[in-house]
């Protein structure tokens, strides 16, 4: 039986560069690998990996397995799985870490089941038990109302990690590492899906993930209109973006791309203004990393006030325009 050693990260590229989640995974993986005194490897699979390999080393990898194949231009499970399965089988890592992104959510369970091993998804923290070298995996459960700690009873241990839960290392281009160009044949006849069309539905203006200020509306907004008016006016004033909790997205009041929460986007702006949001754990899972949370809600018992630093109890129709107007005045003066 092969000896399982080291940590492998399944990396992701965005526009030819390492995705931020991958730098976060490298930061966390580096610490785990150091605790184990073992190597940190990173898989990068794309039609062209290029300079991203060096980037992975600068962010902490000891070895980068660069797999290039035309079939890897766009993520499709049946082609990526062939690469991930073969590499994991070849190098026998103790632990495989994957981002809890749309790709990771799709890839990780397939990989774990294919390998016959356990997976813990959406981890917030990971650590090594010194005696057993096992990975302790902590993740939120019950919509964020509790957290659970798991250990694997099979190997390799596979885990996905929530975006923005881990910190990347400072980029250090003098770090040394090895880039291993790796040829893996992909049997394209085994790809059972076909992408017919890719449609961007991005909201105009600042991207939610990059916005320093987010004005987020909930079920209590009552319909699509206030997102375009009251919330947008406040967001524009603060050079921020408008977001929404799950009910407005489910009801079609806003595009799904604006949905912040456990099953939407995870954001961590400087200022998060939650308006008419009850603060179900499902939602706060997506915004609890914000520096300052401000809540406006008519229900003084709303859970969001447990999360917020500042709050106003009142109907948003009355509170928000007054808040916006006063701010306008103050910012002008």
């Amino acid at each position, binding site marked *: 039986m092969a000896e399982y050693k080291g940590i492998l990260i399944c990396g992701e590229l965005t526009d030819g560069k390492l995705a931020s989640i991958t730098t976060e995974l490298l930061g966390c993986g580096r610490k785990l690998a150091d605790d184990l005194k073992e190597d940190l490897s990173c898989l990068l699979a794309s039609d062209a990996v290029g300079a991203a390999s060096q980037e992975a080393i600068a962010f902490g990898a000891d070895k980068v397995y660069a797999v290039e194949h035309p079939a890897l231009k766009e993520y499709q499970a049946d082609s990526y799985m062939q690469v991930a399965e073969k590499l994991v089988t070849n190098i026998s890592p103790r632990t495989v870490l994957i981002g809890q992104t749309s790709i990771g959510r799709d890839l990780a369970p397939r990989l774990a089941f294919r390998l016959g091993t*356990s997976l813990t998804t*959406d981890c917030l923290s990971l650590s090594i038990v010194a005696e057993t070298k096992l990975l302790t*995996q902590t993740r939120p459960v019950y919509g964020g109302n509790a957290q659970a*700690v798991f250990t694997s009873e099979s190997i390799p241990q596979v885990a996905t990690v929530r975006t923005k839960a881990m910190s990347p290392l400072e980029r250090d281009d003098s770090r040394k590492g090895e880039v291993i160009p790796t040829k893996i044949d992909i049997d394209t006849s085994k790809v059972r*899906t076909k992408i017919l069309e890719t449609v961007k539905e991005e909201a105009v203006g600042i991207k939610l993930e990059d916005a320093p200020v987010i004005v987020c509306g909930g079920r209590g907004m009552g319909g699509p209109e206030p997102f375009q008016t009251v919330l947008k006016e406040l967001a524009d004033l603060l050079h921020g973006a408008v977001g929404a909790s799950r009910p407005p997205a489910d009801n079609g009041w806003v595009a799904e791309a604006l949905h912040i929460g456990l099953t939407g986007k995870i954001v961590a702006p400087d200022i998060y203004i939650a308006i008419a949001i009850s603060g179900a754990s499902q939602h706060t899972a997506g915004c609890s990393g914000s520096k300052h949370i401000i809540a*406006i809600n008519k229900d003084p018992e709303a859970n969001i*006030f447990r999360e917020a630093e500042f709050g106003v109890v009142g*109907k948003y129709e009355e509170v928000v325009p007054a808040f916006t107007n006063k701010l306008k005045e103050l910012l002008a003066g």
Partner: protein
Amino acid sequence: MPVNMIVCCKQVPDPEAPPVVFKVVDNKMTLPPDVKPVIGQYEEFALEAALKIKDTMGGKITALSLGNNFVRDVIKKALAVGGDELILLEDEAFDGGDSWSTANALGMAIKKIGEYDLIFCGRQSSDWDAGQVGLGIAEILGIPAVTLARKVEVTDGKAKVEQVIPDGYQVVEVTLPALIVVTSGIGALRYATLKGIMAAAKKQPLIWKPADIGLESSQIGAAGRRSKLDKLFQPVKEAKCEIIEGETPVEAGANLAVRLREGKLL
């Protein structure tokens, strides 16, 4: 072409219950009796996805669930809204399982059902939120899967799926049989009609025990899991919210602006 469909559903404690009622006692989630069980929100979307196909193409929907202590009226909702059959893998021995043992048991049950074109699952259960079982079943059965689907159509032996990606969607075509993991956006589950409720009341679910699907006790529940729950806990949060007051909500809104400006937050 009528479409033969299986929908996997899970009975969970109502996830919309206020956060304060969720209490961990002795490593177990305990909820007061007034929190009623429901079919998980994403499984409701999965059911709706199947019903929409049945509306246009015709066919059959078999709802499949694994658990212990099912509340019949809750799980029978799958029949009341338009499902044709309900199969329950119901046994104490299923307790203490993980995503692995759950997907394995559901996969074995689907093998026993035999014929199907599409299997629908929700993207994640509303209690453990793991999001593994659907893809696990697809791996066990060796069929293709498309995740995060918000629209599904069937034509010429293929399914066309709108799959949510960051900032948009992709239209993905997949050969049948296939498994589809459904997310929100498909539309809320329709209400049961009175006729549907009455028909469901008369139908009895099929109950399958582990032996009926060819599983031994070492393969199910706690014995069949591959990851171990060491601890369940609730991080302590200290509420420290400063409530900004005012004579009227309008004044409070203005005072909030002043306070945030003073605090140099904005």
